[in-house]
């Protein structure tokens, strides 16, 4: 049990409020909570990669960081325009 893993444990529980907000509340709130979860997830992946001593899995965090923005944009565009 190293410090990174403990950090990951703590971070994991910050996903709980995000989850609650994703499933209740209005459309905008849900979207914001989803974006928040994406950010938490990115940091969590960094922590876990460090905890497992697997430097090659930083790719995952990087992918998450790059793609979350696009995901948010998808929802924003479609909620705004069509749905």
């Amino acid at each position, binding site marked *: 049990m190293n410090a990174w893993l403990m950090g990951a444990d703590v971070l994991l529980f910050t996903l709980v409020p*995000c989850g609650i907000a994703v499933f209740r509340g209005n459309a905008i709130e849900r979207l914001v909570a*989803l974006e928040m979860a*994406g950010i938490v997830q990115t940091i969590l992946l960094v922590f876990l990669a460090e905890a497992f001593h697997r430097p090659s899995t930083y790719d*995952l965090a990087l992918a998450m960081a790059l793609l979350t923005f696009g995901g948010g944009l998808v929802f924003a565009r479609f909620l705004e325009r069509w749905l």
Partner: protein
Amino acid sequence: MLVLQATILIFVAITATAVVFTRQPVRQVVGLSFYGIILGLLFFILQAPDVALSQITIGAVALPLMFMLSLAKIRRDAEERKRREESEHRREAA
């Protein structure tokens, strides 16, 4: 470690159930995205980084975009049908 795995498994179970019980499609897609995030975490913690990467890349943009496009298409079709019916009514009235 085991605690972490168990916690994430429980998260997955709860989120999946929550997605199923969300009835409105657009909200369901948002929930599904969140579920994808948790699922990616589960794969990673079970030491399957390849699968986790697939989940992340697909779940971030491509999957929601697909769903949103389909929903937009269904909405459009419904609107079109309604418009067509309305115009038919009008024609009949005339």
